[in-house]
């Protein structure tokens, strides 16, 4: 065979940035080729938005906002109340898809192939985490667009939007690392999406859909101290142009994201390094 390259072209020195970008490109290419997971990312929050505003909103709006009449006025009030929640849920949805994708890589031979190559070891999972973060951010734009079409007019200024982008990027990174670990920890691709489902439930057990102070004591206690409540409240405050946003709540939101992200990263890293019996 004359065409064979005999000299080894592999560079010995690691190039982590190049490898992460290559893996990110792979993740995005997969999203384009298999849009199912991405469509689910947008469709889920969209259906919930329509359902909660046009079906429940007339009644719920009057309940969450004092002095608001049921009906059209209630729907407008509820749209304002739950749009921040559905944006957070969009980010969570992205994270659940990472779990499935990571489990697919681990079940097929491709993750083993990557492990036998002289590449930056962190790039394999980072590519997935960043790829789905990009998808989640794109989905956020579509969900916000839908809310706008339904009449949503938040009072956020340019700086608030920027802070919101930062919050969602941080939340997305944290949840994506956590879900990559859940995906690697699952026994099969089919069960990979089960564990992250708890994350989709948490916004309901917080201030996502109704104010916490309407709940019975035990549920309220949980709702006040779980991570999604400060995140949702911070998003809500930023979208309202900073009105009613307490610094302590924002700090809690960021703190939770950092804690979940670091824990998820450490867990994912140890699972990736763990020997998988061949």
């Amino acid at each position, binding site marked *: *065979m004359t065409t064979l390259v005999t000299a080894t072209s592999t560079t010995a020195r*690691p190039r982590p940035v190049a490898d992460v970008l290559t893996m990110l490109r792979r993740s995005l290419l997969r999203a384009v080729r298999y849009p199912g997971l991405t469509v689910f990312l947008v469709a889920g929050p969209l259906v919930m938005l329509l359902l909660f505003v046009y079906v429940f909103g007339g009644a719920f709006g009057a309940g969450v906002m004092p002095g608001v009449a049921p009906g059209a006025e209630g729907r407008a009030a509820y749209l304002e109340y739950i749009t921040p929640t559905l944006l957070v849920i969009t980010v969570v949805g992205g994270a659940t898809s990472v779990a499935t994708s990571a489990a697919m890589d681990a079940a097929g031979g491709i993750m083993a192939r990557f492990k036998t190559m002289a590449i930056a070891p962190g790039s394999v999972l980072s590519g997935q985490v960043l790829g789905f973060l990009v998808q989640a951010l794109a989905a956020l734009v579509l969900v916000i667009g839908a809310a706008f079409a339904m009449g949503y007019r938040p009072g956020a200024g340019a700086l608030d939007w920027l802070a919101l982008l930062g919050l969602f990027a941080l939340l997305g990174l944290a949840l994506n690392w956590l879900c990559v670990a859940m995906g690697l920890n699952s026994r099969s691709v089919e069960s990979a999406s089960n564990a992250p489902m708890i994350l989709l439930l948490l916004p309901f057990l917080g201030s996502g859909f109704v104010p916490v102070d309407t709940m019975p004591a035990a549920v309220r206690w949980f709702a006040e101290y779980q991570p999604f409540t400060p995140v949702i409240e911070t998003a809500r405050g930023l979208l309202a142009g900073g009105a009613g946003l307490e610094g302590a709540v924002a700090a809690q939101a960021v703190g939770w994201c950092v804690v979940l992200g670091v824990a998820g990263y450490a867990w994912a890293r140890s699972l990736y390094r763990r020997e998988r*019996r061949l």
Partner: protein
Amino acid sequence: MPGNTPAPAIEVAGLRKSFPTRTKKGDHVVLDGVDLVVPTGTVTALLGPNGAGKTTAVGVLSTLLRADAGTVRVAGHDVHDDPGAVRASIGVTGQITAVDDLLTGTENLRLMADLHHLGRAAGRRRTAELLEQFGLTEAAGKPVATYSGGMKRKLDLAMTLVGAPSVVFLDEPTTGLDPRSRRTLWDEVRSLVAGGTTILLTTQYLEEADRLADHVAVLDGGRIVAEGTPAELKSVHDAGSLDDVFLALTEPPTGDGSADDPATSKENVR
């Protein structure tokens, strides 16, 4: 590497590997002191029944698994002390086809080229070259999910070769392939060796070992029970074919009181 005489591409001494069992009644010993030397530029076939430890051995040699004891050097580097250098010199085609089903053949190969930091032009050249070499040019733009098993296996091997590795591991590369695809793969192996590449392949097809291998090592119960050239093995055991040698040397898979236990059945399935 110091010295003028080329060091063997693979040197394994006293390799041991066990896996914990679920019952916690001690570990399941898979490799029980394996010694193996593969000279540079040759093909060695690792033969053995299901559950003999072939895949585990390839796993340790390719840095996927950590040895419990023994030394393993591949391409002059210790797999434990310098796995990065080993990885830079090897290519692995495992038992499970390691391709990205959602991408096209070209995209899979370019992914490998990018991970080898070949650069855009060289990556494209190498991709086109390998597609041509494996007869995949026509299917190059189609998603791999639409490929037949044989085509996937060829792409799998092509991906392994993108970085022009000096040592190539092939774990049952032709299992499930039709005779024509098998022959194509054999031809590729021969041309690789002609180019100076060292190959360690595992196989259950004894004809494959007979036709391809310079050297055959029979693994059974976690140890190398015989080795030599195919001709040597046949004459020592006064056998007409490697099939007879294989049957004479290895335990039946469901042996009584042999190294096999129910835990191995999991390995067989995988």
